[in-house]
């Protein structure tokens, strides 16, 4: 049955996240962007929301709630509406943790999941992107060779979120031409972590470069152990999540521009009364909606264990195109004010262009 209805519980969660984003994220977003830094205080405060732990099994100390990609999509949109950078920082550990819950071996669950059930923010991260031009997740350069009962990882990964403080990395590498995933502890021999990459947007989100110089890991480090894993499903979750983040960002731009355009006057009337501006805002709204439904569709397929590769791909690429269009035109609506850092729109524009080229930073 085709339905857009939220459960009461989902309504409640969405409301709560909307308030949290408005009160805790939006007010500090600019300051974090200018300082290229997020305080531990914020990360720990966000951690208390239990975004990561509540959906972990009770056996490892989690909340034992069933993981719901749909609910997570709602949460991500609301948090990103406050600020995409802080939203991503808050949920980076979920991507790692969820991957273990979803595809990890029993041993991996027992060893790694408890890390995320503590009272303080704990970082672990996914390493997908590579610094090469025209990076394509379908064409990985990082290699994993079998060596006896071990794997040897070689290559360079970049844009690894929270890499500077992550205890573990889930490294996506090509094994005999097919993508595979491996759990690599931060102190692994041959692993060099260079924290603090400088990027166009999401400036407050620390990202690292990982150099893997023949890093050896045991066979048990492979995600899923002997059973192996499905990297595609892992990336599907990440793409669907990014889509929801971009929807939140887009909505933030729209909701900032509407009151601005109604107040701002030119040629004796509010600029919102000019068709050029009014229609632009109408199209922003239209595309926020369209992007959201695509994100929901991907999330609902993930929730039901269906193959979501197509819908996640379409949701991510569509949201990437439209969120950039919306933020770019948000600047245009504000005119000169859109170009100066007294207003958040230029930051949202940088974040949108940045989010559009990412993979594997967040998950559902």
């Amino acid at each position, binding site marked *: *049955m*085709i*339905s*857009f*209805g*939220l*459960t009461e519980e989902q309504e409640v969660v969405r409301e709560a996240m909307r308030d949290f984003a408005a009160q805790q994220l939006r007010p500090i977003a600019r300051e974090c962007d200018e300082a290229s830094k997020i305080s531990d205080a914020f990360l720990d405060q966000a951690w208390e929301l239990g975004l990561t732990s509540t959906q972990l099994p009770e056996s490892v100390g989690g909340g034992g709630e069933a993981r719901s990609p*749909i609910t997570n999509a709602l949460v991500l949109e609301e948090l990103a509406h406050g600020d995409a950078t802080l939203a991503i920082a808050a949920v980076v550990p979920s991507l790692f943790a969820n991957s273990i819950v979803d595809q990890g071996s029993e041993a991996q669950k027992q060893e790694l999941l408890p890390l995320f059930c503590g009272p303080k923010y704990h970082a672990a991260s996914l390493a997908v992107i590579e610094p090469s031009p*025209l*990076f*394509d*997740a*379908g*064409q990985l350069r990082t290699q994993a060779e079998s060596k006896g009962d071990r794997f040897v990882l070689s290559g360079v990964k970049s844009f690894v979120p929270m890499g500077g403080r992550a205890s573990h990395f889930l490294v996506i590498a090509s094994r005999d031409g097919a993508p595979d995933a491996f759990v690599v502890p931060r102190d692994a021999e041959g692993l060099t972590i260079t924290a603090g990459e400088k990027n166009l947007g999401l400036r407050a989100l620390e990202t690292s470069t990982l150099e893997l110089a023949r890093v050896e890991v045991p066979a048990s480090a492979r995600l899923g152990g002997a059973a192996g894993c499905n990297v*595609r499903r892992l*990336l*599907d979750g990440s*793409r669907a999540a990014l889509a929801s983040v971009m929807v939140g960002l887009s909505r933030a731009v729209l909701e900032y521009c*509407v009151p601005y*355009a*109604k107040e701002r006057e030119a040629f004796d009337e509010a600029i*919102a*009364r000019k*068709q050029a501006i*009014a*229609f632009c*805002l*109408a*199209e922003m*709204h*239209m595309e926020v*909606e*369209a*992007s959201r*439904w*695509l994100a*929901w*569709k991907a*999330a*609902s*397929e993930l929730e*039901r264990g269906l193959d979501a*590769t*197509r*819908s*996640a*791909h*379409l949701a991510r*690429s*569509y949201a990437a*195109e439209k969120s950039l269009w919306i933020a770019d035109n948000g600047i245009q609506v504000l005119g000169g004010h859109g170009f100066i850092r007294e207003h958040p729109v230029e930051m949202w524009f940088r974040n949108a262009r940045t989010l559009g080229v990412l993979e594997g930073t967040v998950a559902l």
Partner: protein
Amino acid sequence: MIDFRLGPNDEKLLQATREEALVARKYARYYDENEHEFPPDELPEATDLQPALARMNIGRTAEDSSIPVLGMLISMGQTWGDYSVRLRRQKGGLGNAALQASGTPEQKQRWGGETLAMAITEPGCGSDPSKVQCSAVLDEKTNEWVINGEKIFVTTGCRATGVVVWATVDKRAGRAGIKSFLIPKGTPGFVVAHKEKKLGIRADDTAAYVFQDCRIPRDHLLGGDEKVAKQGSGGFRGVMKTFNMTRPAVAAIGLGIAEAALDFTRGELEKAGVLVEYGGGLAGTSAPAAKFLQLEALFEASKLTVMRAAWLAGEGKPNNMESSVSKAHAGSAVRAITQGCIEILGPMGISRDHLLEKWLRDCRITDIYEGTGQIQRLIMARELLGYGRDELK
């Protein structure tokens, strides 16, 4: 609970619709090239196939979608075959929707069985219904309305057995003066001028009407309310109601055509050995595949805006904004999709040996009728900004 899966009966109905559509498609080119002819009310194949629509309300389960949603999916499925040709032509037109929305119980009872066209647009007024010049004057002596004026772009205007006409009883009152009148075919003074020659949907029945001192009984006023209500309420509102489902429906009709274009293009890409893969990046993709993926995303997005508007209607929730979102989105989407498919396939795309070029022409109407894309943007912007008609023109 958010869900985008079809129920078992949804699946069956859409499968049946698809089968009917494939039959209709066999006749699509013929009636496009021979626009003076009308497709028959029943195709020869009709006897062998049980029409899907008739089964719409039968055997539905809790897992099946609401009627409005299902209706949109069936509309898409039908125009996927052809815009105009049907296995069995359905009775009823836009006028029937207006009758259901604003007619009195007696009127619904009396005319429900007719095929009613809807006549709104006039040569002088396109998207601005408040400028209707067609007049209705009450003749107290005979208790008759006297209708005078011209109407164009009347869908199913030739085949309809009657028409719901917008006419003003008081020009000074603007949109408040507009009322709907039901005029049966054959009424003296009611002339069907001609069938329009169009870019696309050529097999479709689009007429121009002329009314000269056309007299109808007093009780042919839809809803029966003769008072001239205040601005933006009353008669006009009543009729506008019908738009809340017709906008998503028009969007769905266009998207069915766009989906046909995408399916055809995907098939040709496969034949040509061009891989269309999901989950890859730009680097590993060919230009035609990348273009196709972009069009596919546009289609999915647009389809979901239609589902959204229809779902709200099914929930009995207001969907004025969402109806315009779906109409505006689909209006641009179908243009981009059909144009893009031709760009991908190149010269073969413009050959009338294939239906792709026809789909380009047929779906172009989507962004024009039932309120152009510009009008939909006006509606959206007003809701978004909380502006009235005078604040945003």
